[in-house]
């Protein structure tokens, strides 16, 4: 049995050495392919006049050359750190890392009601292999993730995954650029469909609209605002335009708006609801995401003034 143990140790040691080599190669690949990951952008970009946070709706502001055009039009440095399906908890995590390395004058938080109603869009997002496999390794991120595991209910396995690099080693799309597949449809125009909108809403609200979750994640947004203000950044919260068909099906949206506005008012944070400002389906590439035309129209009508007014 002793001989077996010695052999097993040697086998494991060689295996670990091989794993380290594969891990190193995977990390190098992440550096080359992870352009859309918020942590990659943090590493690549510097200080900003505006940091944009939010879920996939906010990502549309960075599709194609949208961000570059906004920067050229306003003369401001804008960094979009939004990520698919992420709520205030994950966005606070991202913002903390950004502010650890850079300075931001303003933070634009794009609020989506669904992200305030489920841990699927908050704690659980940390464990999503798709996000972890594109996040460059950084000891400070690992340490913060561990703190979130202890204090915020994030699954410790997410920390283990991030530190061990398993999702990066196991990434089947390791050679592909990490663009969200929806970006390819940015130029498309949406044909309204009630059943598609209903399915999408059922997906976005897996737990319904529980009051306890809303309390918790409004608290997280409050903490995010505190983090930003603590670093000297002004915070503006907006809701992006949505097609009428989709907006009309959102559950308890009026109640959410009221609670959000009250929370932000307590902190003295400006809140702009643009959800009804651009309701024509031709401005969307799917049931709820702005397309190129929508993005340009929204920027010209609302966003440009807001950004420049800072």
């Amino acid at each position: 049995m002793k001989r077996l143990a010695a052999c097993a140790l040697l086998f494991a040691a060689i295996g670990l050495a091989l794993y380290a080599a594969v891990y190193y190669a995977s990390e190098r690949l992440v550096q080359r392919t992870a352009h859309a990951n918020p942590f990659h952008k943090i590493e690549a970009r510097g200080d900003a006049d505006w940091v944009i946070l939010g879920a996939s709706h906010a990502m549309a502001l960075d599709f194609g050359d949208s961000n570059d055009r906004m920067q050229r039009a306003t003369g401001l440095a804008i960094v979009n750190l939004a990520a698919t399906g992420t709520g205030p908890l994950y966005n606070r995590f991202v913002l903390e890392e950004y502010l650890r390395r850079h300075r931001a004058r303003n933070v634009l938080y794009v609020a989506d009601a669904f992200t305030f109603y489920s841990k699927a869009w908050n704690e659980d997002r940390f464990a999503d292999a798709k996000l972890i496999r594109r996040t460059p390794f950084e000891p400070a991120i690992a340490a913060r993730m561990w703190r979130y595991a202890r204090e915020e209910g994030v699954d410790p396995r997410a920390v283990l995954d991030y530190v061990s690099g398993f999702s990066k080693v196991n990434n089947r799309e390791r050679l592909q650029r990490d663009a969200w597949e929806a970006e390819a449809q940015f130029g498309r125009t949406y044909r309204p469909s009630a059943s598609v909108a209903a399915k999408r809403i059922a997906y976005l609200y897996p737990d319904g609209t529980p009051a306890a979750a809303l309390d918790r994640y409004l608290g997280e947004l409050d903490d995010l605002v505190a983090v930003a203000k603590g670093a000297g950044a002004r915070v503006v919260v907006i809701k992006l335009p949505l097609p009428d068909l989709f907006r009309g099906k959102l559950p308890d949206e009026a109640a959410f708006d009221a609670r959000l506005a009250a929370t932000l008012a307590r902190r003295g944070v400006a809140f702009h609801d643009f959800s009804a400002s651009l309701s024509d389906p031709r401005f969307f590439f799917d049931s709820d995401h702005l397309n190129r035309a929508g993005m340009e129209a929204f920027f010209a009508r609302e966003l440009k003034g807001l950004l420049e007014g800072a």
Partner: protein
Amino acid sequence: MLFTSLDFFVFLAAALALFGLLPPRHRWLGLLAASAVFYGYTHPSNLLYLGGVTLAVLACERVLRAVERPVARRGVLACGLAAVLGSLAFFKFGGLVMERVASPAGYSFYAFSAASFLIEAYRNKVPEPRGAGQVALYLAWFPKILAGPIERATTFLPRLALPRADPAAVVLGLQLATWGLFKKVVIADNLAPFVDKAFGIVPYASAVDLLVSVYFFAFQIYCDFSGYTDIAIGVSLLFGLPLMENFRRPYLAQSTSEFWGERWHISLSHWFRDYLYFPLGGSRAGAVRTYLNLMVVFVVSGLWHAGLGYGAVGWTFLAWGALNGLYGWAGLATRPLWRRLGEKLPRVRASAALAVVRAVITFHLIAIAWVFFRAKTLGDALTVLRRLADKAAELPGLVARYPFTTDHYAAMALIVFLVAVEIVDERRSIFERLKAAPVALRWAAGYAVIFALLLLGRWQAREFIYMQF
């Protein structure tokens, strides 16, 4: 708890540590505790069902030991079987008459073990009483509880006396478990997306998509199920408890009767043979009864799968069972023909070419039957087969023009690799070959499989197909 989850690896390390710390005489206690943790991990209520079956079995066994009158013994056995198999039928088909109660994971498998235990106890073949705990462990043993193999108490219980893992068994166990993981995570789960897509909305799938899916599903279900079994047998060996072989390179079978009788889900086949086919008279009650008995076995097997079909009743599984029964009938009917061929042309009968042809034909017959197993409805299954039959003449051209992706080629390469390994294994066990190989080659093979798992495996907790039954 899934064998492919991180939780399982942590659990296994803890269970092995506990096993090593306990004195051999009391190790079964640690194994029982570990099994309870494993089975109750996600749904603690599962333990109530397991406990209920265990108590029913123990009570019947005690009475059987005490009672000698044949009529009374038969009555006790009937009560025990009614409780165990009746509850199984309730979970399978109760939903037809009342609100459906979800079946606890693996219920079928320990219900089959429990029924086997009761019948063997009735036949006075169960070893001397070893206490309720060991009988409970026989039913609850975590490597096999979710999807078998359906071990017999007559062989399993004696091994519990002093479970001890010798180095050779540990090495073999690790190799088997790793190979099982490879089959599940690398092969089965990489084939699954193609199959899911084509069978998801059958009318939207092209003929080539359907063709590819039919082939891929044959290998998906094999690698999924036999992968599970390899992991179960390998893990059990780490604790010094060998389990029975459940798969023996099934797609190399030269007839469907060989496939079902000797190579696929052997423990269930033997269960049906010993507790259903033989009691019905088997092949010794005349030709008509032989045909009837054969069909009964396959239809009952289909019925067992059918309870949890994709729809309210899984008619597709019944069709699958009946079709395999028809294959069995064809096999029986042509058996004298084969015998005569063997007598007249012994060289042809023994030729490798004929063996290959027979294996290929058998594989295709089984693959056709799998279409019923996989399709959501009978209509879908018939649509798949009709579309393939209608396009049969055009298929070579369609395949040549089909835009196969890198993922398709990777999946095909994995299948070719699997078949090559199985052909080599058929002649002499691959593990025996490895044992005799130089250490560098052995270790290189080990690293190759482990890194294939890390680099190519799909680890996003996809359930094993047979756990649903």
